[in-house]
């Protein structure tokens, strides 16, 4: 008996070792693991599994969508991993997923590395609120583009700077230091915010630029929306940017921004949709477009799209068709789930542009859309 137990133990141990070594072997060859996603399994019964990966910003909306979509089309299951936009771009480039997602559009260089033509489908848009902490001033702070840029460039250091008091004649701004806060983790929110500053300030564009992480001229870094908001709330004189959804849910004071038309606009979901609509007729054909600083009179200026990335020429008719149908649903019926989750609806004009894109997705030249 004694001997037999030890034999069993030994066998279990050996099995474990083989398994771990086998696992290691698989990981060291990422190129090979890319294969299965491409192969079709039309004969397989049970739901079809689609894989997506990428942006974290739209994750709450996407997980709601993919959950609701299985109720509409029970043949499809969608597994979305919010690993970040960089990961999403990498995975779609390597074809390890059926669709990618990103908060910033792919660059020309990134597109040229992909094995096929990748389409950008805007799925929703979000606004970035400029939150602040000034004791006694709960709302009504007004900022314009140049002032905001100079605060983040470290040129305006005090709250009672003449440029700020000129914008806010009815507020009694204190003589305290401005404590600038930004995101320390790479994020789509940072991309939209720095995209805005690059558009409105030549100096920012030249010195800092736009990206999911940049070299900040001044300020403290907070991790995530909660880190930035926490830092602002803890520091009198703090200013920082957070996702609008986060500011709304946590009742943080945020500023009104002067838009291109000269109006001071509070960040809101309708003002975000208006901003996207205002840019619609100027959109480039590939929809890789920045919608910050929209010319529409009621637009909030710091807003951005988030995109789903998909190959125009699909390798697999079954999975390709499933993704296309899901996307079609998302930009139409799926839009009603956006606002309850604090995402802005796509404007009608952008839905039209998306429709044309989705219709162009094909397998061997044949459109995959059901309609």
């Amino acid at each position: 008996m004694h001997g037999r137990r030890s034999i069993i133990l030994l066998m279990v141990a050996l099995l474990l070792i083989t398994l771990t070594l086998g696992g290691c072997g698989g990981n060291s060859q990422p190129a090979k693991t890319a294969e299965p996603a491409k192969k079709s399994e039309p004969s397989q019964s049970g739901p079809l599994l689609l894989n997506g990966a990428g942006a974290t910003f739209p994750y709450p909306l996407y997980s709601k969508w993919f959950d609701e979509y299985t109720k509409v089309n029970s043949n499809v299951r969608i597994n979305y991993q919010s690993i970040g936009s960089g990961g999403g771009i990498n995975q779609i480039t390597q074809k390890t997923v059926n669709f990618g997602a990103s908060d910033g559009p792919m660059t020309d260089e990134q597109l040229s590395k992909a094995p096929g033509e990748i389409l950008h489908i805007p799925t929703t848009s979000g606004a970035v609120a400029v939150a602040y902490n000034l004791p006694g001033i709960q709302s009504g702070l007004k900022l314009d583009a140049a002032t905001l840029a100079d605060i983040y460039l470290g040129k305006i250091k005090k709250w009672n700077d003449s440029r700020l008091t000129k914008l806010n004649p009815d507020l009694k701004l204190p003589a305290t230091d401005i404590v600038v806060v930004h995101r320390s983790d790479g994020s789509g929110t940072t991309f939209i915010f720095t995209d805005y500053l690059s558009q409105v300030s030549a100096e920012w564009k030249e010195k800092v630029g736009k990206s999911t992480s940049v070299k900040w001229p001044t300020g403290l870094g907070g991790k995530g929306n909660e880190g930035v908001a926490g830092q602002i709330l803890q520091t009198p004189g703090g200013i920082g940017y957070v996702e609008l959804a986060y500011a709304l849910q946590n009742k943080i004071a945020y500023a009104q921004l002067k838009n291109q038309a000269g109006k001071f606009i509070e960040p809101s979901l309708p003002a975000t949709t208006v901003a996207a609509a205002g840019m619609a007729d100027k959109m480039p054909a590939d929809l890789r477009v920045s919608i910050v600083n929209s010319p529409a009179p009621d637009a909030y200026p710091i807003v951005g799209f988030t995109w789903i990335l998909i190959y125009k020429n699909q390798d697999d008719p079954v999975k390709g068709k499933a993704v296309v149908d899901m996307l079609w649903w998302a930009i139409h019926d799926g839009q009603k789930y956006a606002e309850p989750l604090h995402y802005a609806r796509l404007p009608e004009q952008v839905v039209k542009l998306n429709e044309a894109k989705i219709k162009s997705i094909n397998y061997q030249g044949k459109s995959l859309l059901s309609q």
Partner: protein
Amino acid sequence: MTIRPNLIRPQSSHQWQDQSFRLLTLVFALAMLGLVGLMVLELLQGSWLSLLRFGWSFLTDADWDPVFENFGALPFLYGTLISSLLALSIALPVSLGIALFLTEIAPQWLYRPISFVVELLAAIPSVVYGLWGLFVLAPWVRTHLQPVLSRFFGYLPFFQGPALGVGMLSAGLILAVMITPIVTAISREVIMAVPTSQREAALALGATRWEMIRLAILPYARSGLLGAVLLGLGRALGETMAVTMVIGNRPEIAISLFAPGYSMASVIANEFSEATYALYLSALMEIGLLLFGVTMLLNFLARLMLWRLTGAVAGTRE
């Protein structure tokens, strides 16, 4: 050793068990070595692009700019080392004090609750420490600690600049809190392992309690205490979440402890998921390699120190 063919015979089942157990543990031990080797290999492979592009200047360049594709690790290296050393210099005296109090002074009824609470501190997840650091510690540092420090020690360059709360000082403090339990627990075990005869001998020679601790216990426990310090330092070097929350995440080298800084583990955690191009990813990998190297080097130096120390002591005794 060779495995003899008669091992599989039932009558020698005990010997068989011995052999297979030896083999099994050997495999596990070698797997550990293999794991470290694989890690270094993967890190080297991942950071190859950055190694080729920046070479040694990666270590001396203080500029980290993902937009203009220039990466230097110096501020992160500095931040990790300073915050960890600061933490150690705060935590070591405290931990040693707790350990000595528990083993030499505390009555039995106090011993158990204190050691229980100290060990409990080790079980708190680091993200909880981080949020506590951001919402409780940092504001306290800003409103209480920093004004006092700058008032009494403001002439020193370490305590100058605006009081922001978050920064190197807060990072050091939170790391000190986090490594205290492990340093305390190991120091306590090490001190308890000092033979009673050692203590009695010192006391019999007329030593006071303090002299007994200084002359009989600490020299005896030295190598074990160094082990405790190393484990604490290891945890401080690699700590990510809690540090990220309170260090201020600013890649800058400032003498003042009030100023924000950045650590190697933090920048990896912050930027890895959104690193959108190969060189950027590779630079982050190289930071990981560097962190690995720093940990190894510090371990090596500590062992060297210990070896010199015990060698010298042995020399004087003979």
